[in-house]
């Protein structure tokens, strides 16, 4: 794989995905072998929205490859505050770095920004659009815990605005996966994602309740339902409450169910699940480093 830019999970073939996951497994098995791999490489971080995990794990990944980061800082403290366009910002920052990581609130921002730069640009989330590096670490976690053969996965929560869901659903069309989508009616998959899944001939089913489908699942991927998606607090509480899980909910699940979450969670996964074998979400977050190391290695030309 030698993609100039990583914009959307849609652009990634099964071979691309497996190349990243295989490299991530090598990194995880022997991190020291990659410690000097990209000495002096600089990663430009352009985060126009707050981020904890994604930004920290990219930083950790760059440093563990022997490189470093240059960080634009917060929007409030940057030239964006003075009205600079995104196109100008990335054109300037590409002169400081070997690759760029962009998070931006507008959908399509990464695609547009990539058209203005020559260094590889990695989309770290564009509004409700795509989040392909989260997807790669999600896929890595799925492969490690459940495998892709005959995979049955349930994706639950905010499917309309959840960019991690959109990216993951696209990527899973490359594999032999049955996808079940569980959400309130108002937060079902957007038309564009449904269109793509249909075009890919993906096996998908949509549900408003978890119970009927839970016993079939190998993986349950839970996402947060945000209060601001609802007109009032009481409606949010009533609806969000139906998509929370605890150990009682999981009594109907298979013993080897893998529960995942892109984090941060609020209360959609009860803390009592954390200590069970179901919980894979912290491991999933930790996988962000080897997976992003693998991706950076490939994007920066690790195969040469």
């Amino acid at each position, binding site marked *: 794989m030698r993609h100039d830019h990583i914009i959307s999970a849609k652009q990634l073939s099964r071979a691309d995905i497996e190349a990243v996951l295989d490299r991530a497994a090598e990194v995880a098995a022997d991190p020291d072998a990659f410690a000097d791999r990209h000495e002096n490489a600089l990663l430009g971080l352009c985060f126009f929205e707050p981020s904890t995990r994604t930004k920290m794990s990219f930083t950790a990944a760059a440093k563990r490859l022997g490189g470093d980061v240059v960080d634009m800082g917060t929007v409030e403290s940057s030239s964006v505050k003075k009205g600079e*366009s*995104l*196109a100008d910002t990335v054109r300037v920052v590409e002169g400081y770095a070997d690759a760029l990581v962009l998070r*931006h*609130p*507008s*959908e*399509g*921002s990464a*695609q*547009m920004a990539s*058209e203005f730069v020559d260094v590889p640009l990695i989309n770290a989330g*564009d*509004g*409700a*659009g795509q989040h392909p590096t989260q997807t790669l670490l999600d896929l890595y976690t799925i492969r490690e815990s459940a495998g892709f053969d005959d995979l049955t996965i349930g994706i639950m929560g905010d499917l309309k605005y959840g960019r991690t869901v959109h990216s993951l659903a696209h990527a899973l069309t490359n594999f032999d996966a049955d996808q079940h989508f569980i959400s309130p009616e108002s937060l079902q998959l957007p*038309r*564009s*994602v449904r*269109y793509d899944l249909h075009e890919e001939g993906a096996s998908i089913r949509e549900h408003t309740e978890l119970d009927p489908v839970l016993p079939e699942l190998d993986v349950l991927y839970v996402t947060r339902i945000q209060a601001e998606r609802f007109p009032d607090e009481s409606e949010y509480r009533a609806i969000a409450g139906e998509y929370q899980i605890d150990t009682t909910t999981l009594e109907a699940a298979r013993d080897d169910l893998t529960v995942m979450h892109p984090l941060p969670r609020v209360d959609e996964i009860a803390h009592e699940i954390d200590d069970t074998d179901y919980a894979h979400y912290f491991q999933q977050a930790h996988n962000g480093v080897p997976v992003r190391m693998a991706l950076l290695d490939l994007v920066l030309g690790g195969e040469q």
Partner: protein
Amino acid sequence: MSDRELRVSKIRNGTVVDHITAGQALNVLAILGIDADSGETVSVGMRVPSDRLGSKDIVKVEGRELSQDEVDVLSLIAPAATINIVQEFDVVKKHRVERPEEVVGVLSCPNRHCITTEDEPVESRFDVLDDGIRCTYCDTIVRDSIAEQIDVA
């Protein structure tokens, strides 16, 4: 239609867009970037009788030969349109509109969170699907309201 009934006069040189879906003539002008300030001499017929369509709109633009790319965009709102290029009152070229693979500029994305709606140096771009169009940047699909997305700014 006989000359006696002719509602829109003949043009000497320019383009006649005929067989436009009734009611879409003004949208056709908007797509072609023709407005009160653009200077062309333009004749518009709306809801005139048509053997083929029952009723149709027709637009004649004096002094301008539209390119195939320009007219292909019209296919999105007027799939039956025909284009006649006129020189010295004679039709010298005739073609039908063809659905283009993509449309650049012309339309604006209805997703208010799309980067193309912000103050960035980028034109809107849509892939043309069998039954609609899709923003290349944010993936939003527009099916029923394409004419509403014509960028008249």
